[in-house]
């Protein structure tokens, strides 16, 4: 079996990750923040260490600004539902995932939010001129994916942050596809709100994602999505305002957060640059191999320096589901076909409503895996 679906989730998980999860269950099983006994403190420490590792990864001073959620989708909902006031204007790109578009469409209907879409070209590249022109109208928030989950195109979030701030808007970045494989220095890039997925490039288990609040972001602007018990200020029936408790009610997924901590520490030990170089080399090999095949069209920049390792393609005259099935049946190559929860992106790329085949590489992918995929695609493309 050859796993080329890293954009959906990373697999297999490293033994260090499963070991950390097992250790949490066996040795730190208390409820963090609820009781003062040693097992509760041990659980709290494991979670705090994951906050510290994530803060280091994004160059943030204060680990308490790392907020854990169920997944990136929940963190994006927290940002959009918690921040946007009735009538507010939001800018987003035309290659966003439904985890951004669906909450925005809901808020458009329920709170009268003005949603404007910044144009991306047919390769998914953000039109900064269009962003500048749309920022001429007062805007509360610009929310952008860091890289397309479909075709991998990287968006210039640093430039967008500077433009947003100059216009008095905040910048939120959906880094579900990129944290762990692209450098993400929140201070250097000027990101106010960063959403991440724990189970993709960070190598953690499913069930953990989060939101990182930038150094300069005032949490008073952001309402919690969920309220409830935090183990703190228990005599009060109002939600506490201290971080991270304001946004973390109920017992957290400690075992998942402990596993994520191990994944993040592995990223820090390897270095993001090395992870990126690995993905870039495989992405280039795959793009070059496919370029020589007839009847295959690749979407996106087609250049490893402008994208992450997600390759979107179609085969002339063949349904994407048929291509995906043949990849799986002939060589056990696991891809993802269809719309990838991102109809807006497929409209931009010109692949709506049929969708495309997405091959995505990651930490355990080898050159041999990529060559096997190219060989099967060669047979499919000539059949």
């Amino acid at each position, binding site marked *: 079996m050859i796993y080329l679906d890293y954009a959906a989730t990373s697999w297999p998980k490293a033994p260090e990750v499963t070991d950390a999860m097992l250790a949490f269950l066996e040795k730190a099983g208390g409820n963090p*923040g609820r009781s*003062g006994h040693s097992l509760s403190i041990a659980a*709290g*420490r494991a979670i705090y260490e994951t906050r510290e590792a994530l803060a280091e990864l994004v160059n943030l001073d204060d680990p308490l600004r790392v907020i854990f959620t169920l997944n990136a989708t929940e963190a994006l909902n927290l940002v959009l539902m918690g921040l946007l006031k009735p009538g507010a204007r939001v800018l987003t790109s035309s290659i966003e995932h439904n985890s951004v578009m669906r909450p925005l469409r809901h808020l458009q209907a329920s709170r009268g939010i003005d949603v404007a879409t910044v144009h991306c070209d047919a390769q998914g590249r953000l039109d900064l001129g269009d962003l500048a022109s749309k920022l001429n109208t007062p805007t509360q928030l610009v929310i952008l994916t860091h890289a397309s989950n479909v075709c991998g195109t990287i968006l210039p979030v640093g430039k967008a942050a500077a433009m947003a701030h100059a216009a008095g808007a905040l910048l939120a970045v959906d880094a579900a596809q990129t944290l762990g494989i692209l450098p993400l220095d929140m201070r250097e890039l000027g990101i106010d709100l960063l959403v991440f997925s724990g189970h993709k490039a960070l190598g953690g288990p499913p069930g953990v994602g989060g939101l990182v609040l930038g150094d300069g972001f005032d949490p008073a602007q952001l309402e919690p999505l969920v309220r409830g018990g935090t183990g*703190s200020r*228990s005599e009060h029936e109002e939600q506490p305002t201290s971080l*991270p*408790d304001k946004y973390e009610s109920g017992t957290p997924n400690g075992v998942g957060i402990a596993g994520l901590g191990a994944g993040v520490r592995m990223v820090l030990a390897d270095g993001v640059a090395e992870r990126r170089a690995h993905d870039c080399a495989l992405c280039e090999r795959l793009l070059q191999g496919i370029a020589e095949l007839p009847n295959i069209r690749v979407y996106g920049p087609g250049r490893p320096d402008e994208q992450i390792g997600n390759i979107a393609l179609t085969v002339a005259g063949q349904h994407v589901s048929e291509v995906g099935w043949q990849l799986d049946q002939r060589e056990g190559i696991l891809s993802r076909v269809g719309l990838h929860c991102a109809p807006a992106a497929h409209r931009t790329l010109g692949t709506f409503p049929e969708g495309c085949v997405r091959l995505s590489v990651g930490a355990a992918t080898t050159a041999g895996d990529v060559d096997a995929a190219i060989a099967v695609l060669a047979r499919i493309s000539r059949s």
Partner: protein
Amino acid sequence: MSQYGVVLVPNTSSALKAEQLLRRAGYTEQLIPTPREFSSDCGLAVRINWSQRDEVRQLLADGKVEIVDIHKLDRSQLTK
């Protein structure tokens, strides 16, 4: 016998952050259940040497740990 102080913080994550900052700076500290007579904000508090309270207050302020209060501790069960 050294006297202890107890640093009250708003939540457990802050107590754990304070523990890390103090440990790395070479201070002797211990997480203890918060004495109920001081606060019920957070179940955990940080026990320090009372003589070091001013340095600790500065270190935690520099590290952006919110301090609710620092009290002198004289309960025998928490000072052993």
